[in-house]
């Protein structure tokens, strides 16, 4: 009965969506409104104005930089939400309990991870974050890979080892680098009397202006990368944490 009602509702929604899709501009068409209105300028001048060969990067950091600031705020608030629910791992836990995560992988896995780890980190930082303006990839992708590498490390060596290497003291300031990077670069713009998050500063011309802009965008990219990566790591740590000390019986009260 309930299923039937749900299916009926879905049918109605589906019919509505299909109706709209049938009336939409055909896919791949060059004349659809979205390709004729705003885009040509991005594509033609994107490299020169946006400051990146990869126009997506230009759009993200420059034309729509404010959105990206919102994006890093989203993930920052997700982190706050997760730790507000689950609490951070306890300090000193690594010493007292031998292996809180309960996972101890084989020597082979650990050796492979030990060698692969620096390579992945190097790839993430060098290729993704710094090189993002000319090829696919950027700060956030780099950060995600960075985070993933630490997660792999954790799976191989256990949570205590990881938390010992990346203690809370280090992570907490790093988590906000993404937002701080945006703010700092925005305030530099404001100090020069232009709008927030503008990278071309008045009074700086020619090649110098390009350099300054690239520098500012790189700072933001690296900020996003480190911030995003560390946030992922912290979320995973919070979820892996063994919270034996407050485990309550599951039995519902009568």
């Amino acid at each position, binding site marked *: 009965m309930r299923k039937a009602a749900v299916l009926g509702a879905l049918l109605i929604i589906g019919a509505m969506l299909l109706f709209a899709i049938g009336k939409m501009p055909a896919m*791949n068409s060059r004349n659809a409104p979205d390709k004729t209105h705003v885009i040509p300028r991005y594509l033609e001048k994107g490299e020169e104005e946006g400051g990146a060969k*990869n126009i*997506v*990067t230009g759009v993200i950091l420059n034309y729509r930089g404010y959105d990206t600031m919102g994006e890093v705020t989203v993930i920052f608030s997700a982190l706050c939400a997760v730790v507000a629910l689950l609490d951070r791992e306890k300090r000193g836990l690594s010493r007292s309990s031998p292996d809180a995560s309960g996972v101890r992988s084989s020597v082979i896995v650990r050796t492979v991870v030990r060698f692969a780890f620096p390579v992945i980190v190097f790839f993430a930082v060098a290729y*993704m974050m710094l090189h993002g303006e000319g090829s*696919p*990839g*950027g700060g*956030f*992708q780099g950060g*995600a*890979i960075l*985070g*993933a590498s630490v*997660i792999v490390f954790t799976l191989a060596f256990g949570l205590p080892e990881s938390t010992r290497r990346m203690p809370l003291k280090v992570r907490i300031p790093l988590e906000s680098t993404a937002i701080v990077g945006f703010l700092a670069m925005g305030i530099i713009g404001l100090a020069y009397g232009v709008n927030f998050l503008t990278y071309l500063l008045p009074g700086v011309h020619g090649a110098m202006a390009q350099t300054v802009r690239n520098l500012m965008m790189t700072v933001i990219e690296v900020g996003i990368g480190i911030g995003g990566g560390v946030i*992922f790591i912290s*979320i*995973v740590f919070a*979820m*892996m944490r063994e919270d034996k000390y407050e485990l309550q019986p599951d039995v519902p009260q009568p």
Partner: protein
Amino acid sequence: MNWALNLLLLLFLVTTAAVAIRLRDLLAVAIVFSAYSLMMAILWTQLRAPDLALTEAAVGAGVTTVLFVLTIFKTTRRED
């Protein structure tokens, strides 16, 4: 864009999604979902969005799956 490849990928997408919905072993669901994300990443390279493909592969197939698997380990594997 290659039409046949596109079609194939779309079919795969729908199939993996359907399998993910039908399966009752949650761990398997998480793995199938990660395959679904990878399909999506490949589809995005076909749609000329390499940035997105990278992100989806790293975040969708990587981080999200790790989060799901962690949760499943700490809770329950069976869908009851």
